[in-house]
């Protein structure tokens, strides 16, 4: 596993204490797991995700990521209805390891309340929480 200073935490997105990230895209929010989370998991072999139209409240478990060494629940940083699921991950779950903030995104959410984003962490606050 990498040291903290070897991990990547981009600006321009918000972070959740459960190691997921949220990026506002108009009235939708894209969600994935952080570089820290994918590094902890190791090579991901399977991801269980919801389907479109599933609904969640913030902090609900919305999926599971499995590697050879561990299985980790995924907690959603914002409540809402699932608009889209990254179907590329079914055949290529390793995308989450390779590009956790890009092609490895998990779900796209139509939030019930965008103000929930206000209580998520900034990049610096998230990094501080990992120390």
């Amino acid at each position, binding site marked *: 596993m990498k040291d903290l200073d070897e991990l990547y935490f981009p600006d321009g997105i918000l972070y959740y204490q459960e190691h997921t990230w949220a990026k506002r895209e108009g009235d939708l929010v894209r969600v994935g797991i952080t570089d820290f989370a994918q590094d902890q998991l190791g*090579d991901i*072999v*399977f991801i269980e995700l919801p389907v479109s139209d599933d609904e969640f409240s913030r902090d609900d478990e919305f999926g599971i990521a*499995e*590697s*050879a*060494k*561990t*299985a980790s629940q995924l907690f959603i940083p914002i409540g809402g209805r699932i608009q889209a699921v990254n179907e590329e991950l079914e055949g290529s*779950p*390793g995308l989450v390891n390779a590009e956790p903030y890009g092609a490895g995104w998990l779900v796209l959410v139509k939030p019930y309340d965008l103000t929930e984003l206000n209580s998520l962490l900034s990049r610096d606050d998230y990094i501080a929480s990992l120390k």
Partner: protein
Amino acid sequence: MSITLFTSTGCIRCKIVKRFLGERGLAYAEKDIKAEGKEDFQKFYVAHRKSIYRGQEGVEFPLLFDGVAIRQGLAAVTAYILAGKGLDGFVSVGTLHQEWVDGLLVSGGDPSRAEEFMELLRYLKGNNMKIRLDTKGKNSHILSRILDEGLAALVVMEVPGPGALYRRITGEEVDPSDLARSIALTPKFPQYQFQITVAPVIEADGTARYLTPGEVAETARQILEITGSKKHPYLIRPFKPESADDPRLKGLDPMAVQALYSYRTAAREYQVLADLGKE
């Protein structure tokens, strides 16, 4: 039938299995999940996810797949290579690591396959593994041979309850003399432990109730009577209803830890080292 062996770089147990395959001239395809076999493992995992055992430390390796069966862990894979399904019952996926190997239940298998089971144990011991054996009393003659050959470092014997209740607890018949011989043999191993799970007993009307403190004490007394000693390690463990197959047992309320203290008190009359075990 072709064998695929999933391994992990640096996995010593994987090397032991590979050596075993090589000694038998068995061809296999090795897939190192941390190297060239990463993608193959990912595809295999997706296809067989529900059948793959995952322990506290993740997926257990080595993992063997021959198109029919999946076997995981050093003992289970070696047993399958040695005897196919013939040693099922004796062997399951172990949970111990480093120099220990477990998942070996002396009383669980077909006694006609004893020789193969002994061969398995000799091989594991010969590869510097320390063997933990479990027993519930049957196949004491095999346990005796294991003792004579010095193959096991640790034996854990689960004595399910008083002899008269054995069938109602385990659903199996046991020869009381077989059980008694196993009890007598267990303390002769380098390390050993007796234990009892405060398990449900199926009554004549089909309902289930837990063993009583008196019954747990009676089991402790039985160990005293057979071995002549009150100073054996004797662990009293709670039953986990959620792990039961029988729906009558699944519905039982789990026993609170505090309730187990009365069991320990009762058992200490006959086994002074009786203590509570974790789940």
